[in-house]
């Protein structure tokens, strides 16, 4: 179909989203997009989610950290923020996320709010709660594997 004249094209805002999970979680763009749609529809309903029209454009996730760019219709960013706050897990894996910034273009969003590739994680053996355990460390944050799942810790706890 012929594209719309400029003044009729929808205006978008791009939200930079920082994602954090346990190191063993496996997320991809599809599963994240599905959860975004569920969260939006559950919180805002059909009308609200059609208005916000949230689409995940960029998505990377590896070893427990990642980021995404979510496109939202201009004027609905606060509703989109609220819906994203309700996104608590993807395929059963708990997810922590925060909106680090919003921009009018994807490029500005990437340049301003998405930090370059984080330093790769480091596998370590640590002593945590008097036992020797396997852990994944990055920037002073340490996810320690225990008998009942991961424990989030920092260098202060080791």
């Amino acid at each position, binding site marked *: 179909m012929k594209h719309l004249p400029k003044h009729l094209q929808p205006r978008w805002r791009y939200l930079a989203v920082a994602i*954090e*999970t*346990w190191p063993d979680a496996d997320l991809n763009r599809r599963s994240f997009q599905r959860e975004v749609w569920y969260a939006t529809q*559950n*919180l*805002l309903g059909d009308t609200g989610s059609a208005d916000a029209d949230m689409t995940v454009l960029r998505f990377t996730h590896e070893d427990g950290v990642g980021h995404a760019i979510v496109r939202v219709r201009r004027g609905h960013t*606060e*509703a989109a*923020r*609220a*819906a*994203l*706050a*309700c996104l*608590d897990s993807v395929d059963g894996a*708990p*997810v*922590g996320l*925060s*909106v680090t910034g919003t921009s009018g273009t994807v490029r500005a969003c990437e340049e301003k709010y998405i930090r370059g590739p984080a330093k790769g994680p480091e596998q370590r053996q640590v002593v945590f709660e008097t036992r020797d355990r396997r852990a994944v460390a990055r920037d*002073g*944050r340490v996810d320690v594997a225990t008998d009942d*799942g*991961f*424990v*989030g*810790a*920092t260098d*202060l*706890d080791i």
Partner: protein
Amino acid sequence: MYEAVHARPDGPSTLARQVETAADYGFDGVVVRNHGNEGQPDNIAAVREAVDVDVVDGVEIRADDPAQASGLVGNYRSKRTLVVVHGGDSAINRFAVENPAVDVLAHPMAGDGDFNHVLATAAADNDVRVEFTLRPVIQGEGGSRVRRLRGLRKLRELVADADAPFVVSADPRSHLEFRAPRELAALGEAIGFDPDDIRSGLAEWGRLADRNRERMGDSYVEPGVRLDDS
């Protein structure tokens, strides 16, 4: 703005990790509200020394009946800066709002708990903060979330009518359950709160901690009366 958290052993993340996440998300401080029977992190003072944000030692008292709760409040009042009562039961809710030694009544609408105008007035008279917990909105789904939203709405109307003090929290059990203040304000707006109320509810934890620290100081005698060295 402050967030009130459950740290290991009452959750899968240590206090240090929660505090680091809080600092990242722009909170000014963290209140430790581990359930009294789950144990307390043993390094609160060390973490407070090591980080830029404030760390407040608190406790969330979980009791089966008001008599037991009363004993626990008496026990913890002099030891902890903040005393929170785990609400969600009509008898416990009533006990908490009628007891000036209690700082915060947590999630009064949880479980089969209920709240009414009498309790709201008592909370205002005794200066007991009522907590609006956003946790069930973030973590829950389906019918149970609808019920909790209905409870939040009722509580909001009662608290506003009685002009009772309140706090807001997402009640995170791990660093992944944290949400930034701006997200919480947006979420509050989506479910009918004034976003400024959400921000002031988050900040109220800090005001409460400052007040209690002053009261626990050596120079404090009673409201308006203090010992002066000079």
